């Protein structure tokens, strides 16, 4: 056993320092500096998700010399996680992933502090995210990705470079995966690429109802059509073995009727929970790429990925890297935002007329909302009539000074977010 106290930083991080102590012919702009080594030890980095990708990411970051790592995850450990989420043991089943993963890394890698946050990402506010130098996502949910993406894009203030939070997003599905670097407001964002997602759609309702051919059709029939007939408004709990058992038996009976083979309990669970088997090797490859990018961005020792790497291990090992383009009408990052001053005793109609004529805005038929609640919309007719009384109300009765007003108009790429100060 080597006494860890006697190991110097230079011995300990020899592998990483090979990259940080030398200039590079590939990236000649890089100048080795002691501050850079200090920076990765002290900068705060946030890992979102402590699951299959998250465990890999935490391990990689800790072993790359990042000293102040935070991890956030709302989930607890399930026995089915243990085959690939290697920071967890059987005795940990039921415990929070973030807490368990942090404790494991803290114990195993000296000199690193991992701070757990056992909660939803939506529970944290912008002040929390503002603390980090960069953020790495290892998520399995589109909704969570859209949320963090929109939050980070919204946080960016062009006049303040500290508000730019690079987002490194890893994702895997079976043998396929991707790693991408998002510089909010500069590169394409997560929302820009929403149309690349293939939706895990169900089957046509009529096929399920009348002409089932696959075991999946029978399972969908049980879950989509028969469930509400038999259970009324009670929501299906896909984590409850009793509900799955009922779906399985119902689907099996239907399969017999149509002479369809292959309805099993685990297929039923797979179809209703939309489970795609996770492959540990895919997670390892994607996490490695994400952490590689984190090191490059934090130290500038090499140019970072610009900006999308896809990986497919289905038939062999294949990767392709390309620059995903920003979408001109992206609902998140093309949103222009502006600050306006307007008199609080003037009416919404006067405000609207002002915006129609303001040379740099020039709206035609704008709709207004604050915090998702409509103030005035031009259509449909019934809604326009219901909201019309708002037109003659003074602005100060409709919202508070400093509120963000969401304005949509056919002339805008998507929307205009106006922070309106009432004077």
């Amino acid at each position, binding site marked *: 056993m080597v006494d860890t106290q006697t190991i110097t930083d230079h011995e300990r991080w020899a592998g990483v320092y090979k990259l940080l102590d030398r200039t590079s012919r590939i990236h000649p702009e890089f100048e080795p500096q002691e501050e850079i080594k200090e920076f990765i030890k002290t900068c705060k980095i946030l890992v979102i998700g402590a699951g299959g990708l998250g465990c890999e990411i935490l391990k990689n970051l800790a072993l790359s010399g990042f000293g102040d790592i935070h991890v956030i995850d709302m989930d607890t450990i399930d026995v089915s996680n243990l085959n690939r989420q290697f920071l967890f043991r059987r005795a940990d089943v039921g415990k929070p992933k973030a807490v368990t993963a942090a404790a494991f890394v803290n114990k195993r890698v000296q000199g690193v502090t991992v701070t757990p946050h056992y909660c939803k990402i939506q529970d944290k506010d912008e002040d929390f995210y503002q603390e980090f130098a960069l953020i790495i996502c290892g998520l399995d949910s589109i909704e969570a990705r859209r949320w963090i993406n929109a939050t980070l894009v919204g946080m960016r203030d062009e006049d303040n470079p500290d508000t730019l939070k690079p987002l490194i997003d890893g994702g895997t599905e079976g043998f396929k995966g991707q790693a991408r670097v998002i510089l909010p407001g500069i590169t394409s964002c997560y929302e820009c690429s929403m149309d690349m997602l293939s939706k895990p759609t169900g089957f*046509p309702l009529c096929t399920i109802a009348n002409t089932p051919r696959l075991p999946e059709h029978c399972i969908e029939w049980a879950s989509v059509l028969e469930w509400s007939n038999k259970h009324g408004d009670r929501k299906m709990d896909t984590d409850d073995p009793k509900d799955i058992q009922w779906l399985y038996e119902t689907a099996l009976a239907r399969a017999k009727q149509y002479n369809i083979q292959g309805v099993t309990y685990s297929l039923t669970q797979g179809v209703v929970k939309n489970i795609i088997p996770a492959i540990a090797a895919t997670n390892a490859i994607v996490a490695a790429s994400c952490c590689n990018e984190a090191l490059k961005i934090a130290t500038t020792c090499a140019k970072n990925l610009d900006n999308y790497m896809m990986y497919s291990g289905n038939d062999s090992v294949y990767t392709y890297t390309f620059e995903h383009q920003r979408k001109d009408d992206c609902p998140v990052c093309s949103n222009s935002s502006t600050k306006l001053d307007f008199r609080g005793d003037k009416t919404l109609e006067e405000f609207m007329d002002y915006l129609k004529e303001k040379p740099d805005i020039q709206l035609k038929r704008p709709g207004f909302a604050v915090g*998702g609640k409509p103030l005035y919309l031009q259509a449909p007719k019934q*809604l326009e009539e219901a909201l019309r009384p708002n037109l003659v109300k003074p602005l100060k009765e409709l919202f508070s000074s*400093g509120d963000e007003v969401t304005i*949509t108009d056919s002339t805008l790429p998507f*929307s205009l977010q106006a922070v309106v100060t009432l004077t």
Partner: protein
Amino acid sequence: MIKIWSMKKESLATAGDKKKPKVSAGQIRVQKDLNELDLPKTMKMTFPAPEDLLNFELEISPDEGFYAGGTFKFSFAVNGNYPHDAPSVKCLQKIYHPNIQADGKICLNILREDWKPVLTLNSVMVGLQYLLLEPNADDPLNKEAADDLRNNRRAFEQNVHKSIRGGSVNGVAYDNVISK
């Protein structure tokens, strides 16, 4: 007193500044979809709560086709993941239609397997109107209605005529949906 008021106002304003309610991309998209709607005369929308843009009803009164003379009500529920997820649409009346089930489920491709985020609320509304103009016997949810349509268009037409006035077809009673 005035001073306290203005101070209170100020602290409210700064609190609002910090915790500005983040509007989701989905909500903005619904606002945009609605604001740019240009509904034909045959469609009417109702908003049970006008401050809630995500839940509303649509009435379609077809002026031609099998279902002319009736007014058909549909509920729309848009979730926060719109437009990644399709809006969830149900028929609120029990009607005799090959592609609409008695409990309101609708077989319209763009509501399920063919939904794409580029589609809008308007696309769905046009789709529903089309379903009333051209019922489709090949994608049945109400199998008897589909068989009737395929085998005897004339009888199907009479069945629709009867059902939308609250009559029974094949032993099943339907709602009276005649326009008022």
